C-alpha cells in the first residue's frame, strides 16, 4: 500500500529525469544540463570530475603459465611499519597521519 503522494512524487521525478535525459541527449551537453538540474553531478562536486576507473580491462589478477624468478622475501608483517601514502593522510588524533611506528609498538608489546 502506497500513499497517493508516493505515486505523484515518482511520476514527477521520473518524468523530470526522463525529460532531462532526452533534452541532454538532444543537446549533447548532458553534463551542463544536468548540473543545472541539481542532479548526480552535484554529488561528485567534491572531485570536480566524474570518477572513472583507470586501466579497467586489467582489473584483477590474471593467470599466466610462467614461473617467476622473483624471490618472495620473508618479511614479517608483525614487525613492519606501513610506509605508504597512509602517512600523508591527515589524522584528527595525530598531525603526522595514520600508520605510525608508535601504533605498531603498542600492538606488538
Amino acid at each position: 500500500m502506497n500513499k497517493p503522494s508516493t505515486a505523484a512524487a515518482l511520476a514527477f521525478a521520473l518524468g523530470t529525469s526522463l525529460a532531462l535525459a532526452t533534452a541532454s541527449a538532444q543537446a549533447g551537453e548532458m553534463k551542463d544540463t544536468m548540473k543545472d538540474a541539481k542532479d548526480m553531478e552535484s554529488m561528485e562536486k567534491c572531485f570536480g570530475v566524474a570518477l572513472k576507473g583507470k586501466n579497467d580491462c586489467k582489473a584483477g589478477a590474471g593467470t599466466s603459465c610462467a614461473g617467476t624468478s622473483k624471490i618472495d622475501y620473508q618479511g614479517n608483517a608483525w614487525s613492519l611499519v606501513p610506509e605508504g601514502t597512509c602517512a600523508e593522510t591527515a589524522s584528527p588524533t595525530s598531525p603526522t597521519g595514520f600508520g605510525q611506528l608508535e601504533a605498531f609498538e603498542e600492538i606488538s608489546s
Partner: protein
Amino acid sequence: MKTSITSESLSCGAPAQAAQAALAELPVRAGASLKPDHFQYILNHLPDIGFFEIHAENYLVDGGPFHHYLTRIRERYALSIHGVGLSIGGESPLDLQHLDRLADLIDRYAPAVFSEHLAWSGHAGFFLNDLLPLPYHRATLQRVCDHVDQVQNRLKRRLLLENPATYVEFSSSNITETDFIIEILQRTGCGLLLDINNVYVSSTNHIRDPRAYIDALPPGTVGQIHLAGFSQEQDGAGAPLLIDSHDAPVAAAVWDLYDYALCRFGPVPTLIERDGNIPPFEVLQAEVRLADERLNSDALRGRRS
C-alpha cells in the same frame, strides 16, 4: 651442455609432411600472446599477425572488457586457447565445473587449438597457480591418459598437450619425459604443443641434450610451438637453473633450437609467449616476425603443404 648451430648449417631435405599440415588448423605462421595492454592497439592498427593466444582462465568471467575485446579481435584473427588450470597431471579428479566452463568458452570463440599442460596445478580442491612437475612412471602415465581422454571426450576435440619446464626430477621416475609424452600421444590421440623454451630450460636444468629431446619426438605430432624467454638462477651446487619466466625476449639458444625443431617437424604455427614485462605491441610483433622469417626460410621451403 649448451649446443648451438647457425641457420646456415641447417639442411632440411626431407619431403613435406602432410600429416603435420592436417594437424595444424592455425595458419602456419607466428602468433602472439594476447594481453589486455594491447587490446586497443590491436583493434586500432589491425597488425598483420598469424594468430593470437589467450589463457582460458582469464576469460572465464561473465562479461566486461575481456569478452568485449576478445569478441572483436576474434572476428579478425585466428585464435588458440591455452588452459593453465585443468591440472591434467593431478592426483585429484578433474574439476568438472571448470571443464564445463572451458567447453562453453571454446563453443563461444571456436579456437583452432585448445592446449593444456603436462603438469598439475590443483590439489584437493585448491588451485596453486603454478605448473607443478610429476614423476614419470606407469601410474602417473595412466592418470594423465585418463585425464586427457576425459578432457577430449568432454570438449569433443583434440587436445594439444604441452611439455613442461621443470626444476626438479623425481627418483621414482623410470620413463624419460619424451617416452612418457609419446605414450600419451599414442594412447589418447592428443597432439603435442612443443614448447621449445621448456625443452631448453628443462634440458639445461637436468643436463640433458635438448636436440636429443627433439630427435626423440615423432614427426607429425607437433600441432603448435611455443617460444618464450627465460631467466637464469643457480641451484644449490651453483649449476645453472633456468626459470621459464616468459618475461624476456626469446634467447638466442632457443632460436637455434627452434630452427633445429623446424628442420625435424617442418613449419608449425608458432607462438611468441609473453606474460611479464609486457613490451609495447610493436616489440612483440618484431619477435613474431623473427619467427615468421624462420618459418619461411629457404631451408624449410618446399616442406609447406
